[in-house]
């Protein structure tokens, strides 16, 4: 097994752990953390594949991940802003089953 | 030389495990954040070693940024008003 293959598997594991966290933890900050873990898994994957040929590293995935990191932090900050204001209004930090009344 | 430096980096990585135990055991938030700070320092050392091993001088810049920004989290922890004791649902 090569170094990229090892990191590719790690990426898959981190992504799967994120999936589990997203599905099993209702607390919203945790769900946001889980989404971030999943994102990091994808990023790791892209960069590990970019290194398959150690002589010629592919710069395109690096640029894609850099863009992805900025998007991830934007989405995270937006989501956390909603969580804060939801908490201020309702005192809740998870989404109950809001059936229509 | 390469092997030695990498070995040292691996040793530092092992050190992190001890710190992780502290994050896990707590008991207070301060214990946890101090352990995380320790990780920051260790990371800087590892980056410096890796910069030598892999001949990527850019990694020294990374270490520099880490050193500069390590304070942000500490100040964030100390300065944010504490609403109450840690208790969650």
């Amino acid at each position, binding site marked *: 097994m090569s170094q990229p293959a*090892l*990191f*590719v598997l790690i990426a*898959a594991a981190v992504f*799967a*752990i*994120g*999936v*589990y966290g997203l*599905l*099993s933890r209702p*607390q919203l*900050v945790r769900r946001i953390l889980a989404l*971030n*873990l999943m994102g990091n898994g994808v990023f790791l994957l892209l960069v*590990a*594949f970019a290194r398959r040929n150690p002589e*010629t*590293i592919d*710069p395109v995935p*690096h*640029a894609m991940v*850099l*863009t992805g*990191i*900025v*998007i991830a*932090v*934007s989405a995270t*900050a*937006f989501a956390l*802003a909603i*969580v804060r*204001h939801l908490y*201020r*209004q309702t005192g809740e930090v998870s989404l109950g089953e809001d059936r229509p009344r | 030389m*390469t*092997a030695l430096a*990498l070995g040292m980096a*691996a040793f530092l*990585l092992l050190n992190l495990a001890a710190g*992780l135990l502290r*994050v*896990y055991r707590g008991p207070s938030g301060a214990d946890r*954040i101090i352990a*995380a700070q320790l990780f920051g320092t260790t990371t800087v050392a*590892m*980056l410096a070693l890796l910069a030598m091993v*892999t001949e990527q*001088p850019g990694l020294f*810049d*990374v270490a520099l940024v880490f050193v*500069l*920004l390590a304070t*942000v989290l500490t*100040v964030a922890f100390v300065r944010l*008003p504490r609403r*109450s004791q*840690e208790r*969650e649902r």
Partner: protein
Amino acid sequence: MGELVGWVFDGLLALSLVLLAARVVASARLFESIVLFIVFGLLMAIAWARLAAPHLALAEAAIGAGITGALLLSTFREIVTDQPPSAEAPKVLVYRLRVLMALLAGGVFAVLGWALLSIEVPAGPAAGEQARALVARTGVDDAVTAVLLDFRAYDTLLEMGVLLLAVLGARAAVAAQPPASGDDLWIGGEGDTPMVGALVGLLSPLIIIVAGYLLWVGAYGPGGAFQAGAVLAALGVLLRLTGRLVPLPRAGAFQRGVLVMGLAVFSLAGLLTMATGRAFLQYPEGLAYPMILVIEVALTLSIALPLVLLFSGSAGIAAGRSQHSP
């Protein structure tokens, strides 16, 4: 020997990453999850370094250690209370559900891992090869910067839109609440203690110099507008935390200008090249580097300010330690 040690290092790193991720998800205490997520970010920086991606290590250091961590910690402070835990579903159900979720996640891992390992290096004309071949024609030496600001500049431009939308969206969350509950999420520190004051005084010029250095060095190596902007934003967070920046309920014209400056300069540069008969953002010969530099300076500021505003939770910021007025 070196290779063996390298393997040991990578193996340890891999193991730590997976264990940390698992613990972030599984921990019963939110604070522990957040701290471990920050540590996960540190190790991601090491992983980027091992994978020869210094640009990403730098971005991780600036964004992960600075902004994301601070955002998570401040949210934690905001939402953890003494209220008793709300009634939960019966434990058995939760347990069964979790087993199901774990099986699902395991399935994802198995299929994903299998699919990934089945991938072979593509034979066709890959984008990466072309990128390396054409870097010499872009006016910058660094391939990643060339991809970000020339080959795929349109991606970078739209990404600035995402950042702007995050700021507008956070304002929409504020607009969604009754006006009485106020705007400011929390008020910064009560003033300088001797150590913090000295520290901030010492760090601020250093951080600004480093940000400038990162911006300039991006043309030749790891660095660039993102990293510089994120480092500047971390400084803003520090100043906000120590009360040297205070929140404003409305952003002034200058700050609104800085918010959209990156997007505007980038778009106008593209439309300008198009007006001279070229494709959108097809830089004229010889003018590529100056144009990229101007765009990068604008981007740096337009990355830093939104991140600070998102952390601040306010529409604007102002210098000084004046009393917060509602």
